[in-house]
């Protein structure tokens, strides 16, 4: 049993790393008032470009950088459409997901080596981000799983507290929150709403690209059509579940990642399931639905207690009445 839980935790952390990177990115984007539903397409493009460029260059770090640049570029399109051209954020996000998913699957059959008929499917990386165990710490029962992870996850351990501190304890973080809460007031305070929205939409996309890279370079080191398999949508759910707080993102990923990993672990262990696997598959979404509804209802009379950015999804222009 102990062994089962440790294995489950290890699988959860491995999968959760990808989710957490993208979630932190999307939290920052949404905090400035921009909803980016392009996560699924951006993560998939990140996974693809990371894999293709690692294969070509032989360096995993080149893969990471390329994935971040790709994610940043896709989100730049979203920022341009939503901020400069004041386009509808929902439609723009869906367009990015459509375009990104299509392009990634398209390029997956184009960027491979000649010997494999230009296909990336079926190719193997010479190396991947392997787990690095920290002596002593890794021997702690169950929790030791946290100290036998890839370098990407260790990086995340540093980023989570930093992302929380930056958002809530710095002047710049205050500016981000102001822009998402009340762009008009923020603009009156002398902040550039457009600049902040551009910046954090792009950074959010870079994190999503990184999240995708975690999948194709570490979690399942390979390329497959649509390999994100809806993780981009789980990210949207996780942002809500974390109540837009980067510090809480990790709780959500552990719960959601745990539920997803549980499906596979139970199957692998040959345990007959009481709950059908499909129920576990949609549980994160149902939980998020209830969380969002209950939180909103409970906070009817306490404005500000519920952390959803008020200006989320709406464009802003000074001349708007």
């Amino acid at each position: 049993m102990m062994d089962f839980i440790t294995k489950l935790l290890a699988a959860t952390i491995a999968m959760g790393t990808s989710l957490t990177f993208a979630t932190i990115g999307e939290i920052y984007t949404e905090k400035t008032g921009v909803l980016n539903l392009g996560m699924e397409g951006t993560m998939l493009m990140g996974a693809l470009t990371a894999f293709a460029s690692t294969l070509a260059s032989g360096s995993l770090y080149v893969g990471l950088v390329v994935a971040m640049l790709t994610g940043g570029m896709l989100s730049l399109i979203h920022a341009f459409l939503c901020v400069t051209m004041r386009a509808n954020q929902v439609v723009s996000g869906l367009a990015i997901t459509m375009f990104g998913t299509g392009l990634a699957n398209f390029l997956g059959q184009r960027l491979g080596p000649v010997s494999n008929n230009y296909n990336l499917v079926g190719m193997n990386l010479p190396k991947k981000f392997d787990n690095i165990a920290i002596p002593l710490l890794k021997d702690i029962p169950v929790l030791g799983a946290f100290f036998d992870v890839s370098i990407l996850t260790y990086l995340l351990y540093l980023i989570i507290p930093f992302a929380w501190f930056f958002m809530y304890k710095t002047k710049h973080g205050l500016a981000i929150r102001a822009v998402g809460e009340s762009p008009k007031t923020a603009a009156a305070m002398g902040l550039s709403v457009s600049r902040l929205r551009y910046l954090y939409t792009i950074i959010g996309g870079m994190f999503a690209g990184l999240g995708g890279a975690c999948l194709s370079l570490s979690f399942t080191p390979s390329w497959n059509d649509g390999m994100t398999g809806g993780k981009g949508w789980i990210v949207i759910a996780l942002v809500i579940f974390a109540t837009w707080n980067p510090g809480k993102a990790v709780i959500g990923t552990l719960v959601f990642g745990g539920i997803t990993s549980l499906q596979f672990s139970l199957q692998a262990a040959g345990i007959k399931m009481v709950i059908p696997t499909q129920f576990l598959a949609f549980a994160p979404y149902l939980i998020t639905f209830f969380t969002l509804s209950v939180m909103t209802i409970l906070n009817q009379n306490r404005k500000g207690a519920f952390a959803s950015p008020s200006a989320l999804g709406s464009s802003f222009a000074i001349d708007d009445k």
Partner: protein
Amino acid sequence: MRVVVEKRDTRSKRMAILIPLVSFIVSLMLGAIVLIASKSNPLQAYGAMLNGAFGNARRFQYTIVESLPLLMCGLGVGIAFRLKFWNIGAEGQYVWGAIGITWVMQFWRFLPVPMLLPVGLAVGMTLGALWAGVPGFLKAQWSVDETLTTLMLNYVAIGLAEYLYINKWKAPLGNMGTPEFPREAWLPQIWGKVHAGIFIALALVVLLWFLLYKTRWGFELNMIGKNPKAARYQGVSIKRNIVLAMILSGAICGLSGSVNTAAIAHRLTKGVNAGYGFTGIIIAWMSGLNPFASILVAVVMAALTTGADALQIAMKLPESMGEVLQGLVLIPLLAGSIFVEHKLKFIKKEAA
């Protein structure tokens, strides 16, 4: 010289027509870049797509069949969008429509066979309406964010459908999926592959056009969307209308799922969540919420899909090219949409 964006006094009709045209040309050029980069002749590729989508009667029929669920979902979400209510749950409501009709076909066998189809469509519609009504009510009563709730509910519906066709309702023989509906209860084909669903879809277009442009309720919905304050002063109940619009919206998306299931798969199986609901959102937006314009937009988007299938066969290009092009059509269109309600103003530099 400085350029500023200024709000127009009225929507520009000329721009509303010009922008989609220019956008479409721009997107074809962007697509050409992708094609050239993958060492294909873009003219040849577009020719193959056009031929694949409309080349002969059979291909034209496929394109029409593919456009019907897009059109219906587009019409459905369009109603909610009039209120600025972002129903992105069309996918889930569509899936409930498919579940509903399967439930009737499989378990309501006490009904005479000719009754199965109409009852099935009605049940599918009702389930879609209920599934949409919940976020509608939550929004109206407690302003729970509808974009996020409807999105989350999609995946619950998809998961439930999977559970049903993989486990609970699975046919004893054969692979994944429920047993086939009785042949007499299928939605009949009327012209090659084109099924009777086309009548339902076109009837909906006319009905909704009438409802939205010619009735008092349509007028109220428009007013709430454009100016909720004014609507409230006029004594229009916003809460009631949000719930009603959502129920109607979900009913149409649900009907779309029932129709497609009764006409094509004839059972609940893999592929029930083909993304029609998501593309429907784009159809609604692209058509400017006009039911008649939706027909054209749905056919174009469907042609990109069926054309891309042909592209794969004719030129050995991945079929995901269709999705790339669908995305590429949207990006310039989204960028241009600002000029319908805004204009550029060039100001000569002057001393302040």
